[in-house]
């Protein structure tokens, strides 16, 4: 395998892993940027997206959990991936709207720490609900068969975690690019986006102009949630599916937001790419041998992600594309 194709695989893997972070981070970032609301339950929305995607796309037989005990071991619609990709965002959008109305709204005026705590609590409740219903076991979420075929990137790929490079990973990158592009257009180039951006600057003034800012806020929250749902569907086949996955993905997603710069969609994209590429590069790079000393990069993959983040924040505390922090 030539060096070039190896680099290509690293690049594609980085983009794919980064794409999932980007989907989550854009949602987090627009909620954080416009509503000033810290959503630690964003991972829970991803979790809901994954499980909902699983049950719409496939037929699943449960082997643990209350549902199985109660006699609902065979669940799922078996409608395929396209159905999941359309239905899950709608479902999670609705959940997002409910969350905004019932929970988030009453916390807009309370301190940041209260927002973090209550959404963290909510995330635990959702996670435990799934654990009780579906059990702690990981469920199989197979990649969609009609796009499962391997793309030959100059010969078979046998890298440890990459395995072969299925078309599904390219789809993930494509879907992310389209969705993020749409959100960008919506926020930057429509009247709706104008109101939202104005509300970010000065919500009071927007209200004085006679615009009900609460409705755009609601929609922004819903869109952010829907993106997390999509991330769950497309990420499901690539990561494990179990109740803790939502919490596990929340940390890198937040990191993406912070190193990219809060409130900018471009920042979320850049941050996601940085983190995804770092991770893929450390996993994919061959071991470095200097004399008798061998440096293996792959155990450092997860550490490297946080190390890169630390370095970026030391140099630019406001994030790569973030604005200089102005005193509140």
């Amino acid at each position, binding site marked *: 395998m030539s060096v070039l194709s190896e680099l290509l695989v690293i690049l594609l893997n980085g983009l794919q892993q980064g794409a999932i972070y980007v989907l989550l981070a854009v949602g987090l970032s627009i909620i*954080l940027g416009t509503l000033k609301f*810290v959503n630690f339950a964003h991972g829970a929305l991803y979790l809901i997206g994954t499980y909902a995607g699983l049950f719409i796309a496939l037929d699943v037989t449960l082997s643990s959990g209350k549902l199985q005990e109660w006699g609902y071991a065979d669940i799922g619609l078996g409608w395929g991936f396209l159905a999941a990709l359309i239905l899950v965002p709608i479902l999670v959008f609705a959940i997002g709207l409910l969350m905004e109305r019932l929970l988030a709204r*009453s916390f807009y005026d309370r301190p*940041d*720490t*209260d*927002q*973090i*705590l*209550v959404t*963290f*609590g*909510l995330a*635990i*409740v959702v996670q*435990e*609900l799934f*654990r*009780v219903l579906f059990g702690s076991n990981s469920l199989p979420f197979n990649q969609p068969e009609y796009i499962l075929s391997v793309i030959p990137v100059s010969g078979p790929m046998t890298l440890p975690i990459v395995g072969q490079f299925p078309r599904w990973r390219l789809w993930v990158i494509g879907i992310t690019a389209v969705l993020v592009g749409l959100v960008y257009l919506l926020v930057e180039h429509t009247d709706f986006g104008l109101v939202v951006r104005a509300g970010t600057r000065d919500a009071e003034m927007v209200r004085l102009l006679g615009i009900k800012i609460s409705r755009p806020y609601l929609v922004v929250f819903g869109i952010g949630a829907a993106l997390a749902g999509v991330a769950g569907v497309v990420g499901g086949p690539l990561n494990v599916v179990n109740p803790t996955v939502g*919490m596990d993905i929340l*940390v890198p997603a*937040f*990191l993406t*937001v*912070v190193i990219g710069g809060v409130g900018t969609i471009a920042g979320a994209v850049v941050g996601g790419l940085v983190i995804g590429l770092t991770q893929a590069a450390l996993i994919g790079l061959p071991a470095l041998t200097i004399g008798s000393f061998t440096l293996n990069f792959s*155990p*450092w993959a*997860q*550490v490297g992600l*946080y*190390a890169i*983040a*630390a370095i970026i*924040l*030391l140099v630019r*505390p406001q994030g790569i594309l973030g604005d200089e*922090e102005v*005193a509140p």
Partner: protein
Amino acid sequence: MSDPKTTSDGGTVVADESLTSRWERIREREATVVGLTAVAVALFPWLFARAPVVSDVLLGYQSLATLILIWGIFAIGFDLLLGYTGLLSFGHAAFWGGAAYAAGVVANNVSADPIVMVLSGTVFAVLLAWVLGFLSLRRGGIYFSILTLAFAQMLYYMSAAPLAFLTGGENGLTGISVTPLFGLFHLESDLPTFAGELLGTWLYLYVGVFAVLAVAAAYRILNSPYGMVFRAIRENEQRAEFVGLNVWRYKLMAFVISGAFAGVAGSLFTIHGSYVPLQSLYWTESGEIVIMTVLGGTASLFGPVLGAGIYLYVENIVSGVQQLTVPFTDIVLINDFGTYWHLLLGLVFVVVIWAAPRGIWGAISDARAFVRGLVGGERR
């Protein structure tokens, strides 16, 4: 100050006198608080695990009593940061788990003396807190929470893979055998005679001493001018800055102090279990200390300890309850009640933040004030 005779005197002498008398009062209060804590710590294992009727109802056991004290120390330190300084760290697992690993590594390679273990664990936690605090405090508010979370995760992944030769990787750090205290007292053996009945093991006594010291230290810090600055920062950071205080340095010190408490607790955890699971660095562990502290009640000395007790009690004992029945009957309310413990705790946590931000301790003191109001009590 409340003495009418001195206030009617007027002049500077009064302020002087009132200041000394005030200091006297604080000293007295401190002695009372620490004394009462010591009594409570001494009575707790007996009430919890050995008292005739009470312990049968509670289903408590000695080892859990020790564990509650250990997490209690951790929670007191965490509340110095969250409750008093207003900084929400989501990365305290780094100090708890880091100290646990440091104590364990020292025990395996240098000396397994319990005092050496606590010292080395605490020193490690303090140094780590200094570095992570320095990095995380570059950003305030939510960014601080996220950064602490991220750095703690970094430590988790470091001990999971690249440092596995030192930490045991996925398996955790095993093979820790703690030597007797002062070379004389085996920590796992019972105390002699009456003390054994009351306190149980030497380990409990050892942990108990640290718990009382932790309360004393926290009380002293909070009632000193230094602690006042912490509260000032929580109330209004900008104003504290304008008054001329170096807010950043105070915040860093609050972070380091709470890291030290976490370090003591983490080292004791290693001594208690002679094992460090990799899980002790994972970010859910940071979440647990947050839940304990908030559930019990922030900005109070004993609220967090109460929270730690409740959390561990539910985790270890309520989770084992098979059926929830109506008391004194056989009517089953919920089957497999224990499996829902985490879910229930999560729900209670959300409700507490929503409705009672001062936690259970705050609710208790509100209730006490209400009752006192009804009876017409005369304090203050």
